[in-house]
């Protein structure tokens, strides 16, 4: 385990693309949050001009809601896709450079190779989660007034929830990478599915006559997103009478984990049999 991790770190740490894509993820995340805040508040300002009852200004960064808000923005499709693409690149590169063949020749088993990439996924998810948690904590402390501190950790469950979100979307990427093997094609198909195909299926299934059974919430990527489905802006939502999600449900976590387990199984079954 330790040996495999050491090998993977050597492959990754000096790889420029790795740092660029990780950087892009955090950049888009920050831009997304700022844009959302700006849009919500200009909407509020606009409404306030026309209605006599004042709408409160949205506050995204106070405890305990900040845990939910930041992880919500960190897990929207367009942002989450960056680390997923990175995993696809890391896996398909091994095929493009034929280094997977060389790794096997040099004495790795196919199972060990898969485990080494899984370790990368787990480590990446862990690292990003820790960074997000750190940022949330810092922002929360600087934005919350004294009374708020009693509830600092109340919604912290969104952090392990976010870890599952990152882990599972990266497992999906792992699946695409090992099955398609070609970098460009794997990225294109993964992006196409996540950004276009699944949302289309989602809206078709959400058509009124299907509304009762809620199958659409069990779509693979959607089930990941749904772990943190909405941001929490209680004052604003209170005025709008909107019941926001307040915790991470166990079922919501189990669905994408189930998909991931199946995908890992399929990858193992295929890689074991297919020629390299």
């Amino acid at each position: 385990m330790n040996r495999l991790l050491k090998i993977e770190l050597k492959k990754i740490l000096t790889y420029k693309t790795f740092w660029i894509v990780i950087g892009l993820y955090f950049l888009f995340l920050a831009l997304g949050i700022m844009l959302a805040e700006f849009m919500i508040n200009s909407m509020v300002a606009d409404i306030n001009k026309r209605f006599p009852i004042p709408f409160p200004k949205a506050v995204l960064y106070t405890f305990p809601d900040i845990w939910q808000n930041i992880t919500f923005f960190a897990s929207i499709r367009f942002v989450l896709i960056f680390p997923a693409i990175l995993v696809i690149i890391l896996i398909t590169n091994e095929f493009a450079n034929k280094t997977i063949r060389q790794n096997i020749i040099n004495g790795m088993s196919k199972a060990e190779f898969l485990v080494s990439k899984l370790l990368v996924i787990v480590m990446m998810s862990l690292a990003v989660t820790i960074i997000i948690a750190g940022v949330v904590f810092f922002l929360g402390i600087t934005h919350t007034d004294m009374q708020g501190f009693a509830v600092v950790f109340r919604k912290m469950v969104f952090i392990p929830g976010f870890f599952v979100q990152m882990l599972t979307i990266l497992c999906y990427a792992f699946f695409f990478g090992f099955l398609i093997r070609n970098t460009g094609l794997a990225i294109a198909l993964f992006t196409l599915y996540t950004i276009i195909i699944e949302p289309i299926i989602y809206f078709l299934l959400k058509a009124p006559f299907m509304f009762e059974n809620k199958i659409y919430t069990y779509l693979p990527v959607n089930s990941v997103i749904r772990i943190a489905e909405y941001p929490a802006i209680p004052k604003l939502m209170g005025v709008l009478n909107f019941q926001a999600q307040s915790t991470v449900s166990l079922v919501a976590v189990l669905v994408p984990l189930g998909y991931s387990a199946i995908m890992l199984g399929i990858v193992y079954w295929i890689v074991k049999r297919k020629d390299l």
Partner: protein
Amino acid sequence: MTRPPQQNMETILTINGLSKRYGKIQAVRNLEVGIGRGAVFGILGPNGSGKSTTLGMVLDLVTPDSGSFEWFGQKPSKESRKRIGAVIETPNFYPYLSAEMNLRIVADIKGYGHDDIDRVLETVSLSERRHSKFKTFSFGMRQRLAVASAMLGNPEVLILDEPTNGLDPQGIAQMREIILKVAAEGITIILASHLLDEVQKICSHVVVLSKGKKLFSGPVDKVLAVSDCIEVAAADRTRLAEVIAAHPKFKSMTTTDEICLAYFTSDVRPADINTFMHEKGIVLSHLAERKRSLEQHFLALLQENQ
């Protein structure tokens, strides 16, 4: 070049009836090969004869349809692969990493320390470029780095697939020198090549493949020394022809104005012929052995099979 015969007959690789089919093409057909320790073993065949597929199978890259193989008398495993160094087709490295970093990864996979890296880089004369990124290397340097990586941790077997392919004449000479240097250390070498000349110059043993089938295998010296053709001349040409036709191993002959070319069914040494003729009262004015080159032999083998 001649090399000493195998020191001992311990078999390092045994291939039992390996077969692999790609769609309609039977890439390897029921192959049986045994490779002894210390041999420089050539796998010779034209392009598409199944050389790379065979190497792919014994290195666990390609799953055989049927048959089996054993390394060091044991079922193949990742542990047996750690005792083997291999360069397959193209040098496969991480382009953005330095030569040294790439070798460190190889050493980590094999479970060896990093202290052998200096030595192998020295062997292939790449010490000065150890910190350069792999992608900046010329083709010849890449190929040499591949050999260096295969030699990490002193493997018992070195597998080379077309090691001189795509190299310039200087690169070819360097590569051959390296291979001979390694062979001199007693490491078993398995070399796949479509170049007869290469196999002839480097190998002690050879298996000839065509369309996935084994045509021939054995020591190169023996193949080269198939002196089944001997040139003789004598004053009395009629008598010469009569006597030589009486030799137990005689097959056929052609005569020109000066000499007679006699073909025999198996290995015949000129000295034996001389004695034989002398006993029959013929004094030879000319006696020479005509070695068929491996190339002629190879082409003959291929032809016989069509």
